[in-house]
Structure formats: C-alpha cells, structure tokens
C-alpha cells in the first residue's frame, strides 16, 4: 500500500523542527531514517499530518569522544556506527551488536535516535543502552532533559519522550580495558528482528544484563545480575530469569520466550 497524504517539511535547525512539532494543528511526526516510520505509513498504521524530515539537521549527526563518554547524535546512521573506529574502541559492545541490527540497506539509512524513540520491544538498541548504562538527551522548545536509559523505555513503543520532544543525543560511558562484553541473539534470518536476545556487560566484577524481544520492552535482569555479582554460576543466573515479565509475540509464546532467554544468556555468558 501507499502512504496516506501528508505535508512535508525539512527544517534547517532543531529549533525550527521543534516549532513544527509543537504546532498542534499540524499533527506532525519526526522522520529520521524512515526505516520503521515509512513501513508504518505505507501500511497506514501511521498517518501523520505533517512529516518533519530531520535529515538536514547536521547538528544531530556525529560521533565524538568527550572525556569518558562517547556522544552520538540522534541522526547518526547505523552504517556510520558500524564504520566508526571510535565506536569500536570506546563501546565494543555496540560494535559486536551492530551487524545484527537489520540488513545493510536498512543500516544505510536507519538512525540510532529513531530506534531509541521508537522503542520496539524486539530492537537491539534499547537493550544495548540499558546494558551500557547510557543516557538519552531530549530537547523540547523549553529546554533539554537527560534520561538514564533505565528510566526511558517504559513499555511497547512507549518511552519517557513527550509529545513534541526530539531525541538529540545518546551518551555512552567509554569502556575500560578490563570491561567485558557479550551479545547473543537468535533470529530466523540474519538481520531480522530477533526471537530473543541479550547484551551483557561486566565492569569490576559487576554485571549488567539486558534482554530484548522477550517482553513488551527491553529489560534488565537484575536478579541474574545479582547472582553473577555474588559469584554464582550460569545455571543459577538462568534460574533467576523466571522473575521477568515474559510476553509472547508473533514469533513465539511466553513459555518459548522464557526458554530462549535461558539459551541466549547461557551462550552470551560462555563468550564473556
């Protein structure tokens, strides 16, 4: 199907974009890479009155190191992250996971900010940001706010982002040499949304474990983290997953999701 009609704007500044998004008569939506929004519009699941194309906002693009944080602009494309030496050096977990996010042609346009704003429960990025203890900066006409990733993803396609706000930046702590990371997902076809997946980070003996595609949102497994922090083994950590609010989707039911969570965690920990 084709998208319903809309008006199209390509503002030249974030301030102009926010003004368009804040105009209630327009019923406007931001367009980033379009790799999720365009399919939704073609299916008429989304019918914004005005599309506010963010592609001219160079101020939202780029990857830079700022002391012990890596700052990534919301409009930075996956392909730029894949090719970035800074990402490989400062956030090895991202480098491990990026090849699993969609297909090359989708990565050529899809953006990190689009994935964060969308909060698809099957997407890798929200879980990666939970495991990495990242921060998400959003901007509204009245100012700028920063959310911890742990407070940002609230439910299925639901985030702390308010109407008319834009995600502008993702800040990720730079990894220390002794940090260890692991990533594992099960997908029917490489690049498809996973049936279950997990990202693990270990820093100074402390673990962060975040799952995706097992519930209505990306989730930390704090019970399993505590088991590992206390020196427990893989089996014990897997047993601790039973506390998570598993939810089925088109791929698999709740029981299968729970089973697969144990599988992906086991494989990720073996590789840690």
């Amino acid at each position, binding site marked *: 199907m084709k998208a319903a009609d*809309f008006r199209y704007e390509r503002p030249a500044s974030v301030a102009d974009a926010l003004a368009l998004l804040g105009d209630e008569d327009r019923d406007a939506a931001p367009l980033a890479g379009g790799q999720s929004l365009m399919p939704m519009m073609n299916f008429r699941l989304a019918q914004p009155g005005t599309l506010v194309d963010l592609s001219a906002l160079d101020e939202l693009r780029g990857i830079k190191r700022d002391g012990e944080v890596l700052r990534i602009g919301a409009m930075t494309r996956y*392909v730029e992250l894949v090719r970035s030496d800074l990402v490989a050096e400062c956030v090895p977990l991202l480098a491990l996971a990026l090849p699993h996010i969609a*297909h090359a*042609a989708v990565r050529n346009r899809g953006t990190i900010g689009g994935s964060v704003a969308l909060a698809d429960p099957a997407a890798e990025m929200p879980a990666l940001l939970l495991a990495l203890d990242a921060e998400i900066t959003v901007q509204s006409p009245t100012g700028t706010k920063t959310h911890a990733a742990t407070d940002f993803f609230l439910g299925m396609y639901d985030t702390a982002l308010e109407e008319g706000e834009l995600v502008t930046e993702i800040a990720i702590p730079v990894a220390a040499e002794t940090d260890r990371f692991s990533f594992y997902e099960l997908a029917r076809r490489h690049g498809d949304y996973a049936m279950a997946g997990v990202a693990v980070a270990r820093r100074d003996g402390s673990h962060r474990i975040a799952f995706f595609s097992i519930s209505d949102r990306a989730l930390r497994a704090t019970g399993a983290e505590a088991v590992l922090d206390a020196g427990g083994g893989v089996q014990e950590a897997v047993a601790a997953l039973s506390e998570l609010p598993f939810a089925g989707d088109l791929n698999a039911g709740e029981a299968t999701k729970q089973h697969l969570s144990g599988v992906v965690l086991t494989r990720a920990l073996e590789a840690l």
Partner: protein
Amino acid sequence: MSDTANISVTVNGETTAAAVPVRQNLVDFLRNTLGLTGSHVGCEHGVCGACTLEVDGAMVRGCLMLAVQADGAQITTVEGYGDRAEALRAAFVEHNALQCGYCTPGMMASALEYVEAGGQADRAAIREHLSGNYCRCTGYQSIVDAVCDVIEGESA
C-alpha cells in the same frame, strides 16, 4: 490534492527536474515518472529488497525513501550500473543466479555493494550481506556462487 514539491535528481548520470507528490516514494517516482522499471516493488515495507538501489553511494530501500528526500541526490539503478556490474552480470548469467528475475535488480545492488566494499569470498559473509534480499526462485546457492566467483576472479 496531494502536496507537491520540486526536485532535481541525477539518475544514471542524467539530471532531471520534476514536481513530485510528497507522498510518492522514490522507487515509484523512478518507475512511473521516469519509466525506469528495472527497480522492482514487492512488499513496500522494507522486507523483500526488490527495490534496493543506490542513492549517493549507498544502497537503500527505494520504497522507504520519499522522492522528495532525493532532491539533489545522485541515484543509480540497475539500468545504470554499467561497467561497474559487468563481472556480476556475467557471473549471474553463468551460474543461473536468476530465474524469474524479480529479485535480481535488488540482489545486484546488494551484491555490488559487497564486492565494491572489498568483501571476501566467504559464503557466510555473503549470505549475511544479502540477507535483506528475498529470492523466491533460486534458493540463493547460485547467487552466492556468482558473487564468490566475481570476488575470486578479481583477486586472481
């Protein structure tokens, strides 16, 4: 009436100006307005890869980009790969890497990106790179054979 916008694009080396409905996607503009029907349209939601074409040096889904977003861009479609894809075309023919041909324009685009980026003749890596392109006929084996051949031929 749909909103329209004036764009100027360079397609396969030729610059064209046009007024496009803003809701029109890029692949429909190329097919219906410019008559370049080489790029195919399957799913219109980014999954099948039949519409994959090159915009400013990157292979993208023609169904997930609006024509208005291509204003000022350099676009290359299967009609325009020319010498760049000569070896791939020959290998596709030699290996029977197409049957109905529906997936072929997108498959060529993705394969070309892989080869030009210096991809290795590694079957798993090739399959990974082509994972976003469905083929309902060949079973992929012959397509991977063709891409391997091109890479091995170039390094020989």
